[in-house]
């Protein structure tokens, strides 16, 4: 099948490669770029495990074609930590025992980062509402919500504020 070129920025670097037009962005990120931290749970846009940041906004990478990301700036779970320093959301989730099996985790972290960038001091209800596009089957969510609240506190005391 014919391939077309695509180029975008991802986790601070720039990539350029050829894909079949039908290739999903998620498959391109996982298989062509080797960034397997982005997970595929349902491949029909409901579970949110494949959530990435696309120009700062959370997006379902399973519902996009790779070619649609042309020129975009993408952040995946691999791009969250700053050098060896974990992102406050990662630190907070560790403290809160946020997750169990870890499969939904990358999508939740990306959604949480997007939420905190938009609203650095969300209420518990707002956190629940904003994260309702991500499914977790292990935790019952409470520990994840707790983790976001810890991240809010960590970010409030971090001089550089919310990073994405």
């Amino acid at each position, binding site marked *: 099948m014919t391939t077309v070129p695509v180029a975008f920025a991802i986790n601070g670097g720039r990539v350029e490669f050829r894909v079949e037009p039908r290739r999903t962005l998620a498959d391109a990120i996982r298989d062509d770029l080797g960034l397997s931290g982005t997970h595929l749970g349902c491949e029909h846009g409901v579970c949110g495990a494949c959530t990435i940041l696309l120009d700062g906004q959370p997006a379902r990478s399973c519902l996009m074609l790779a070619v649609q990301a042309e020129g975009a700036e993408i952040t995946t779970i691999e791009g969250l930590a700053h050098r060896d320093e974990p992102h406050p959301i*990662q630190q907070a*989730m560790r403290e809160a025992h946020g997750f169990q099996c870890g*499969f*939904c985790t990358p999508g939740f972290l990306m959604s949480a980062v997007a939420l905190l960038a938009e609203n650095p001091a969300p209420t518990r209800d707002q956190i629940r509402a904003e994260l309702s596009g991500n499914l977790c089957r*292990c935790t019952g969510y409470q520990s994840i919500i707790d983790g976001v609240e810890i991240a809010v506190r960590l970010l409030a005391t971090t001089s550089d504020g919310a990073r994405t």
Partner: protein
Amino acid sequence: MSAASGLSGLVGQSVTRVEDDRLLTGRGRYVADVDPPGVLHAAFLRSPLAHARIKRIDVTAAKRAPGVVAVFTGADIARLTRPFPPLFMLPGLYTPSFPAMCADKVRHVGDLVALVVAESRYAAEDGLELIEVDYEPLPPVASIAQALSPTSELVWERAGGNVLYDFTDTFGDVDAIFAAADRVITERFSCHRQSNQPMETRGTVIEVDPDDGHLTVHSATQSSHALRWVIAALTGKRSTLSSLRRFVTDTERRRGFITAARQFIRDNAQELRRQDPAGMRAQFSKDRTSIVGINLLGIGLLGKDDYPTVKAHDIGGAFGSKAQVAREDIALAAAAIEIGRSVKWIEDRVENLTDGGQAREEDLAVSIAVDHDGTFRGLKVDIIIDQGAFPGFPAGAPGFTRIIKTMLPGSYHWDAFEVRSRVVATNKGKYVAYRGPWANETWARERMIDVVARTLRLSPAEVRLKNMIDESDMPTAMITGPRVDETMSTKKTLTRAIELMDPEAFENERRSAAAEGRYLGLGMACYHEAAPGHYEYWDSINPGTNLLLAERARATVDRDGAIVVYTPQMPHGQSHETTFAQIVADELGVPREDVRLVWGDTDKTPFTIGGTGGSRGAPVGGGAVRRASREVRQLIVEQAAQMLEAAPEDIDVVAGNVHVKGVPSRGLTFAEIAHEATVAKRARTEPAFDVTSTYRGHTDCGWSTATHACIVEIDLETGLVKIPRYVVVEDCGPVINPAVVDGQVRGGVAQGIGAVLYEHCAYDDAANPQATTYMDYLIPTAMEIPDIEVHHLETLSPGENDFRGIGEGGMIGAPAAITNAIEDALAPFGARVTDQYLPPTRILQLAHVIGHD
């Protein structure tokens, strides 16, 4: 906990998770992330019909499609594999031997018809489009009622009917007790089909070594050893004669087998003596060909050239569904062997919802003989399980009826009990273990107790307290046989839950809410579960199943002092790497960072029949790890005693410093001791200390208990149910890591909430699945699951290892507590909740806001 073991006090603390280093940074490695060089991708053609004969299948166009490497029909795979053997030796049970894929007939929508292997998943799915199949439809069996009809089409021809199992167990003089009781109250309950739905679907990569053909199977499995031996047994088929010849002529191999068999028999003599040969014979009498099949399987295993290695990495949840050996895995292994290349299959969500495991579809008729004052006299239950078409392998509905039979009486006194258990076959997905696979015994009993209380105008909490086994009654036994000791602390959890919920205060709250048109209800449910249970308990389930209580662990100290512990447990979210490190570190007197856990690789970990499941992780796996660490500590202490010229009993280990008591400044490190031991042994490559220990179950009764209590608020405009308060009082003995236990409990409760209010594997009248995406199968989100209060009681027991399991409990208690609260809230409308599934329309019907269908 032994004071002599140099505790560093990690057990009992919510230490952060070792797993999070990789899982929070995207560095987890799940089966979908495994890509051996040159790996090919597989996709399955699945049946669009529930029940049909395959008249013709044409794969020629698919074989020619770009990127397609090979196409296998069911008939092709049948030539390359042996069928799955029948399991569960229950008298009177028909359980079929069944193929990895279908050659002649499909038995449910999603059944396996063909397998395409291609250069990419995209190309494989393109190939599927080009396969032509002519089906001759057969009348589908879509419900329990249809399966019970003698005129329904047979799902399994040799069964002679669609009722595969029908067995009645009786304890006490049921007729006399029912005749003597003041009254008998009867109700019928129905539980709908649900699905485990881990966020990671199933998946397997069969890696073929290009040089010697050795298979390395990477899989999301709850039991890597079981998967290894089933793949070995069913694939790489050679003729029986050549297998036998191989076994006879290859002396080394023969000796290896005989030694291993002797070891197994010696290790498990007591359990093996308890097997039930009469039961097995009774089962084989239904289908004598199965004896031949099982023997061929065994001979095939003996004569194999090579046995696969199974490696499991991170696993994205399972909840029982990955305890199954998938038919897909057998087909994939056969295909990979045949084409000599590595093959990868990652299930998609539609496949997972139709064939990845479903559960709980059961009808239960319950009668309780009771006196006017609420004293329970007798219990009678008639349960019918819809197992779908294919039996779960190795854990399926027939086996679960035995747990249900044993546990139905719950934590209460009864004078008599009878249960009739039936398993029927239908043209639906397979019924598998789902977190507390027997849980409907708790739902039906606890629901029924509320019905009894309401009928007698008594408080449900009082009726429970009145009939519940009290500590002062102990030691005693359940009417079904298993002993109960202080670990069966259900009554303590109930008492605490009543205090926490304060029913009187709730009545005030209910009244003021009612004045505003809001309907509140309070519901409770109590249970105890075998986690892991006593030997006798497993005997009462099925003779011989107490083999599951034995598990090994290996603890080693390398020459550089590194501590490595090997477990056959298969963590998939339960945080074993953290909790087992807590146990080992406490036993050895070292920081937990010094302990590394190895799991998932059959070349490295001790053999087990089980794996992770059945709430066995902490009690059985943890028990084995604890025993192995204790023994390795003893070796370290003895070596150190020699080096320090002291008696072993005078040696102390604190924070990794091994020293004579009171002289920490002249201590030795593990590395120094290990180095000295290695020099002494002159074996430089072996670990310095290496102990494999077998843990053989608790000396106590090993019960885990809980009471769930919740308040619901029902909106009669929308039919939506809110849960403003949910409380769990649980007792799993000493808690290793409270945050981990809380997480297990809350996750289970969330699945229970999903089960009652949102999740349903609906099928239409033609057995077509109606919930094949997450648009129709509704997994509850953060908006639907409330905060859940978890309170721990920690009843200690005199046993060597009193950790008790907690993995399943949340899901066992929740459906009963929630449905009880809903009936309570709808009491003003005279509602009687008999279905477990209560979506908004059903709520509105119960409240007579809308009419019935």
